[in-house]
Structure formats: C-alpha cells, structure tokens
C-alpha cells in the first residue's frame, strides 16, 4: 500500500503522458498506415503546436482556446504542405521519404528557433487549472487531470471519425487499396492530403494541450518523434486500441519506470521495442523463421568454422596450382575499358583526397579526416542498405564499439594504429555477430526500427557505463595513436589525416573487392529475389549475417578512425543524429554506390561544419536544405549523375537502383562525372582556402 502510495503520482502522470503520446502517435500511425508516409518530421508538427500554444497562452481560457485553434490550424497546414511535398515521391520508397521529412524537420526546427528563440518557452495555463487538487492524499496538478479528460475526448472523436463516418471509411479504404478507392470515385490524392492534414492537426492539438507536459524547446521534436515511433512500433498499425495500450505503457515507463527503477528506465523502452519487433518478424514470416531458427543459433560459429576451413583449403590449393590460376575470377576481367570507366570517379576522388593536405588549413584537414571516418560508417550502411537490402539506422552501434575500443586501448597504452584498427574491427564484428540474428530476419522499415532500437540501446549503455565510456562527459586525454610501431604519436592534423586516409583507402578497397566479386552478386540476388535464392539452395540468412558482421567491422574501423582524428569522444559522436546522417549520406549517394556514400558523407560534414562555419548556428538549416534538394534534384542520388540513361529500369527506387551495382555494364561517364566527384572537397573550398596559408 505504501509502495502504491509513493508511486501514485508518477502513475497518474504516466497516464497523462501516455494519452499525450497516443494522440501524437495516432497521427504518425495514420500518416504511415494510410498515406504510406514515413514522417520523420512528425515531432516538428507537435513542436509547431506547442510553440504556438505557449506563445498565445496568457493564463485565460480564451488564450488556451485561441492557442488550440491556431496551433491546430498551423500544424494542419504544415501537414497539408507535407502531403504536397511527399506526393511526387510516391513511387520511390520509404528512404526517399525519410530523407525528405528529416530534411524538413531540420529546416522546421531551425525556423522555430528563429521565431521563438532557443530557450524553452514558459506555458501559462488558465488560472483555474493552475492549481493542484488532492488525489488520495496527494497534491496533483489540476491541469494534468483536465488534460487526461481532453485527450480522451480527442481520442474518442478521432476514433469515431475513423470508424463511423464516410470520411473514415474512405481513409481506411485508401490504406487497403488506393486503386479500388479511385475506381469508386474518390481521389486518392485528396485522401492523401486529408490524411496528412489530419495527422498534422492531431499533432498540433497534442502540442498545444501537451505543452505544459512536454514543453516547447529545441529538443522537443526529436524527443516526441522518438517516443511516438516507439508507440507506433509497439502498437502496430492494425488497431487503435493496441496503439493506445502501447502509448500508456510507454508513458508509464517514462514516469513510473523512472521513479521505480531509475537504472533500467533508459533501456526499457527500446529493449521492449526491439523485442516486440524481433518476435513479430519471427511470427509473421514462417518461411524466414523456419530457415532462421536453423541458421541463427549455431550459425556464426558454424560459418566461421566453415570459413576457416575454406581458407585453409584454398591456401593449400594455391600452393599447388599453376600460377595463372591464382588470380581470382573477378580480377581476370578487371582491366577492361569498362572497368577503368567504372574506377575513374574513385581514382579522381583518391587524387583529390591525397592532395587535400596541401590545399587546406589545419581545421579543415581534421574535418576531412572525420568526414573519412564517417564515410566508412556510410559505406558500411551502403553494404547493408544497398546490397543486403537491410536499411539500417543502427550502424552507430558497432561504430561506437570500435570508437570506445580504440579510446580504451589508447588509454591502456596500446597506441599502435594497426593494432587499434584490427582490435576495434574485431570488437565491432563480434558485436554485429551478436545482434545480427535480430536484424537479418526482418525486412524493410521493420529493420529500420529494430536497428534504431539497437542504436538507442547502445547510446543508453554509453551513457550509463561511465567506467568505460566516461558517460555523458565522454573520453578525452588519451595518448595519441602511432601510425606504426616505434613512431611518435601523431599530433599534427596532416599526419593524422594521412593515417586516416591510408586506413580508409585499404578498408574501402577491400569492401569494393568483395562487393564486386561474385560474393557481391550473392547479396544482390538475396536482395532482388530472396525466394529464388532460397529455392536454389542459398543459405540466405547466413549471407545476410556475414554481411552484417563485415559491415559491423567496417563501421568499427570508422569509429576507431573517428577517435584517432578527433582525439576525444562523446556520446553525441555515436548518437541518433550520426546514425541518421550515415543513412541519409547513403541515400544521397544513391544507395548502392560506395563512392556515392563517401561523397554523401563528405557533403554532409562539409555542410554541417564547414559551410555553416560562415553562418553560425544554421548548420541544421543548411543540412535540411541539402536533404530536401537532393530528394528532388537527384532522384537516383549522386550515383545517378554518372552514365545518365544507361542504367535501365529501376525508376530510382532505393532498393532497386541498379546504377551503382557492380554488375551493371560499364556506364559511359558523362562530363558530369568529374564535377560530381570534386564537389564535396572543392566546392566549399574557396572560403577556407582564403584563410589557408600555403
């Protein structure tokens, strides 16, 4: 009884919080489930409502009503605008939408800060409600109780519209079969706009009413977006009641969970999300599950053993074989004209990268170094997203493992670069092998959500495990890395850059060799026709797991380089933002293009840290503009710039874009090609080069 008594207030808080999340998440679920829009700017719609409500709140009922009307209307208009923005992307898959809506969220966040300031706005609720009532012997804010009532009314109204009205029927029909809906005389376009406007209105109303609970501030949109994503994932898209239950559960975890078990609370949410997703993908696909259950358990070990055996055997053969047979099959056909055309952009990029230290000042060189490290992260995302067909937001997890491994190794006195790289890659690979079975079962957006959960869980561990990671303060002051044994620790930016460049070139070259070998075709086949591959006897789950492990190792190398070049490490370096940037870099690059991923990462770092240097505080705005522009201007990513019309089919849908695939016939490079390759390093060059002394 005492325990119950002590936790009554957080429990009721949890209900209020849960209802707030329900209203927000219902909008997100509506947009995704019926309009097919993965709206990463949904949190921004909430923030629009919250800022408007806070600005207009003056402690009277009139202020609240005015705020509610204005906030809802503003978010509704924003939702309709979103509908117009996403309509041209209807055929291009969820990654393009993610790029667009994430860009819009960045722009929107920046604009909101412009208008309303960077501080949290105070919210003044009507005076009657600005008091507390007695609840079973506890003082409790009256507004929250009132909010619970309002949210229930709002939720009931929404449910009534959706299930009992003609409009709701059209919306539900649009979710099932838009063509059938069109055939009955409704315009799917109008329904699309209506749904997104309604989703915006829901988020806006929730923002106004919820402003006293989740106040308007710079972190609001991301916070709200994350929580409502969790709610939508936990609740599934099928039933409003499930969403409701999930929302209240999440609300309780965030309030009651924090007061009962503060140490566990950071993990609980995303662990629950990951568990639900993994279980669901196991039950949803009996075929995959059947295969996977045989593949996941003993798989890594068996696979490793098999690989070792294969290595042993192949080395024996090599000794016995005549020399001409030593070259791998794919090398034999490399030096053709087509191959040179294919390699040309990479060679140009390599040349530019080698020349960089002579052209730039110290700060820019170190930026270029971290761009390379992020580039490796992006390449690992390309391997998973573009080749294995597993779009991932969680590669920051092995990236973090590699980064913290290197930092701790350096702290323990292991400063030799190659040792750090190899051990970091190993640690990240082991990590990827452990989490891999949870990832490789699912497909499509489910993978995004599972990997998001993995990334967030890793972030939570990083924040909690202070003895290893330094917690939120991060790690700093560890000895500098030596490029080779016996050398001095590297301190000069250009030295560090050259070290990073050498490692990155080796890593990228290895990746390209594997991807362009028939092993790459195995992955392409798995992505393109998984059922065919299984039916032909390919252990698809095993391929995906190996790809996941290799991508993890690659990300680990990236993390190691990141630490080396930055000389410090904080949780923000491995957070959600970096994960999103890595994925968006890949989408910008054209999904299946390694060089595209590198250039995408370069573009993002250059925009965020370099161009924004001349306009301080507006990095997110510039990035947002970059993302939005890329979606429309380069439908097939940077990789689409080369060879224009040659890559038949595909229509630019992210997972099926064949342009950058190694099997594609040598694309005739157009005059666009070299310009595209130069862009990230040299386009912003004038500004810093002016400062640089030769």
């Amino acid at each position, binding site marked *: 009884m005492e325990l119950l008594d002590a936790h009554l207030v957080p429990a009721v808080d949890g209900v209020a919080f849960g209802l707030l999340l329900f209203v927000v998440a219902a909008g997100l679920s509506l947009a995704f489930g019926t309009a097919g829009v993965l709206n990463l700017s949904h949190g921004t719609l909430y923030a629009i409502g919250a800022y408007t409500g806070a600005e207009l709140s003056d402690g009277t009922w009139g202020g609240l009503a005015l705020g509610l009307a204005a906030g809802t209307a503003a978010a509704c208009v924003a939702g309709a605008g979103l509908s117009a923005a996403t309509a041209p992307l209807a055929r291009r898959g969820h990654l393009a939408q993610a790029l667009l809506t994430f860009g819009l969220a960045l722009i929107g966040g920046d604009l909101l800060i412009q208008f309303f300031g960077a501080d949290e706005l105070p919210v003044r609720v009507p005076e009657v409600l600005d008091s507390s009532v007695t609840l079973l012997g506890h003082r409790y804010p009256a507004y929250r109780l009132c909010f619970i009532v309002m949210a229930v009314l709002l939720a009931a109204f929404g449910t009534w519209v959706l299930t009992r009205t003609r409009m709701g029927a059209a919306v539900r029909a649009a979710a099932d079969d838009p063509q059938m809906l069109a055939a009955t005389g409704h315009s799917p376009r109008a329904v699309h706009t209506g749904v997104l406007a309604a989703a915006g209105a829901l988020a806006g109303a929730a923002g106004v009413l919820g402003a006293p609970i989740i106040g308007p501030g710079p972190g609001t949109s991301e916070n709200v977006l994350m929580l409502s994503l969790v709610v939508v994932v936990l609740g599934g898209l099928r039933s409003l009641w499930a969403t409701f239950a999930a929302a209240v559960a999440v609300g309780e975890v965030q309030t009651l969970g924090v007061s009962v078990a503060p140490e566990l609370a950071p993990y609980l949410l995303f662990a629950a999300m990951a568990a639900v997703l993994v279980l669901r993908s196991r039950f949803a696909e009996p075929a995959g599950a059947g295969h996977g259950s045989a593949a996941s358990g003993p798989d890594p070990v068996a696979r490793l053993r098999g690989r070792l055996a294969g290595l042993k055997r192949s080395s024996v053969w090599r000794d016995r074989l005549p020399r001409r047979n030593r070259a791998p099959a794919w090398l034999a056909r490399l030096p053709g004209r087509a191959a040179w055309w294919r390699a040309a952009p990479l060679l140009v990029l390599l040349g530019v990268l080698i020349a960089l230290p002579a052209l730039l000042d110290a700060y820019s060189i170190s930026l270029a170094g971290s761009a390379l490290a992020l580039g490796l992260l992006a390449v690992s995302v390309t391997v998973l997203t573009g080749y294995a067909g597993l779009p991932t937001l969680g590669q920051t997890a092995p990236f973090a493992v590699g980064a913290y491994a290197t930092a701790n190794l350096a702290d323990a006195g292991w400063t030799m670069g190659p040792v750090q790289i190899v051990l970091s890659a190993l640690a990240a690979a082991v990590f990827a092998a452990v989490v891999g079975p949870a990832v490789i079962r699912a497909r499509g957006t489910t993978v995004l959500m599972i990997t998001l959960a993995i990334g967030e869980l890793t972030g939570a561990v990083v924040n909690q495990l202070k003895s290893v990671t330094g917690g939120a303060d991060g790690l700093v002051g560890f000895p500098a890395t030596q490029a080779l044994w016996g050398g001095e620790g590297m301190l000069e930016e250009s030295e560090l850059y050259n070290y990073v460049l050498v490692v990155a070139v080796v890593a990228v070259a290895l990746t390209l060799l594997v991807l362009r070998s028939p092993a790459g075709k195995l992955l392409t086949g798995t992505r*393109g026709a998984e059922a065919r591959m299984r039916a032909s006897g390919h252990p698809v789950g095993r391929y995906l797991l190996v790809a996941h492990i290799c991508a993890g190792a690659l990300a680990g190398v990236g993390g190691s380089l990141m630490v080396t070049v930055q000389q410090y490490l904080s949780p923000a370096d491995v957070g959600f933002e970096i994960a999103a940037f890595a994925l968006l870099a890949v989408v910008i690059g054209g999904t299946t293009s390694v060089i595209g991923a590198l250039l995408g990462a370069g573009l993002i770092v250059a925009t965020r840290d370099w161009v924004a240097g001349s306009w301080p505080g507006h990095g997110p705005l510039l990035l947002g503009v970059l993302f939005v522009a890329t979606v429309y201007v380069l439908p097939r990513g940077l990789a689409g710039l080369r060879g224009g019309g040659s890559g038949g089919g595909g229509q630019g849908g992210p997972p099926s874009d064949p342009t950058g695939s190694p099997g594609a016939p040598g694309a005739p490079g157009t005059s666009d090609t070299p310009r595209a390759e130069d862009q990230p390093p040299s386009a912003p060059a004038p500004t810093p080069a002016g400062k640089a002394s030769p």
Partner: protein
Amino acid sequence: MTPTPAPTTTPPPVLALDRLTRRYGTLTAVDDVSLRLPAGARHAVIGPNGAGKTTLLNLIAGTDRPDHGTIALDGADITRKPTAKRSRLGIARSFQQPSVIAELSVLDNVVLAGWPHHPQRRGAWRRPSRHRLLKESAGRHLETVGLADLAQRPAATLSHGQRRMLDLAAALAGDPRLLLLDEPAAGLTDGDIGRLLGIIGALPSSVAVVLVEHHVEVVAELATSVTVLAAGKVLVDGPTQEVLAHPEVREAYHGTAPSTGPDDARAEAVPTACPFPTDARG
C-alpha cells in the same frame, strides 16, 4: 489416403508425403494429404482456385511448414529442413510469379542458381576454372529454355514469358531429383507452351516432376498421374486419363455437373482437353 500406383519395389519413393496438414487460422489449406512419387514420376496436382495446390507445393519446397504430417525425400525425413537445405538435397521449384534477380544478367541469374549445387561450391567464386564450369552449365540451361541469345541482358529487360523461362532455367540449374512447377504455363503464348512441354518432356527419367496447373490440356499432355485437390483434401487420384474422366472431378474442377450421361462426359473429357498440335513438343 490411397497412394498413387507406385512400383512397390525396394527403392523408397523420391517423394513421400504422409498426412500433410496446414492450417491458417480456421482455414485448412491442405488437409491430410498423402502422396508417394517414384523416381521419374510425372505427377500433376489440379483443383479449383484455393484448393491448396500452391500451399502443397510450398510445403514440399519448404517455404511453408506443415502443422501435421511428414515429408520424406528418398526415404529421408525432411519435414524440418529449411528451404535452402532441401534445394541442395535435390528439390527445385519454379514460382507462380516468375522470380528473377532483375539487376543481374540473365546468365548470372542461372549461375547463382546453380552455384550451391556445385560439388565444391565454397571455392566457386575464388577459382576461375570452377566459375567457368558454372557459366558453361548455366549457358547450357539457357539454351534449353531458349534464352541463350539474351544471356548478357539484364534480367529486368525480359518479358513475362522470358522471365518464366529464366525461372525454369534457374530451377533446372541445380540438376534436381524433384522438380516442382507452379503453374508453369500461366501467361505463356501457345508457342512458349509448346517449348515448355518439350523441355519437361525431355527431362531425364530420373527426375520426378510435380506440376501444379490450371490448364487441363497441359496436364493431360505431361502427367502420367494426377491428384485432384478440393478444399485442401484429395478428391481423387490415379492415372491421368481415369482421373480427368472422373465425373466428380468434372463437377468439382469445371464447376459443372455432367448434364448428360457419364458415358458422354467420359468420351468428351480428354479430346477437348488437348488443343495443342502434337508436334509442338518437338
């Protein structure tokens, strides 16, 4: 259930299904189906839409799992084996929707399909000699299905009929013991159907074929024995001529009861069912 007439000699049947059942919720898609196929059998599974034909094929191929019953290949139980493993044991299949890897070339599609069946597949991508072997055998399969000229084209550029042929070539690439064909004639032109009949007719007699088909004509042409499914259950099975002439089959499958006497139905069933010129097989 009564097994199809199989030679009761010592070698176990290539495929033995024992009381297979698969339920989806309240719907029983495959209900207590048993079947024994000797080596070289040409067996067809027919029935109206939703009779459970494709589900049965999926159960055999391993893309779906039975709730009850066992599946044995050459006498060894494979009920719990994953799809890929079954394929390596010798079960190949074609898909109702032809399944090709659009981004790879036609040749690569077949090379990939034959790869796991190469005796030393682990080294196949490192050793040029073995890679060449794979390519040569893939080329032969493409010639069989008539796509040899398109070998270097991306599979995305193929027409529906060509994709179906590529799918078939991929199924043949593993040199299977048991070939499962899911409506191979759907959407094909008459000429293509003729070629298809020729390919399947020319398969070595060691290969057993299970054919799910809507065209009674194709069934009459290819199969020596037939199982008729209705609502998941075996309605009739036996030699093709007898089954196709069976009045209950005509009623269940064609949806019309023989209006005249059974003798008329028997007389009409087979001749009308075979509109293809017999020389199309060549």
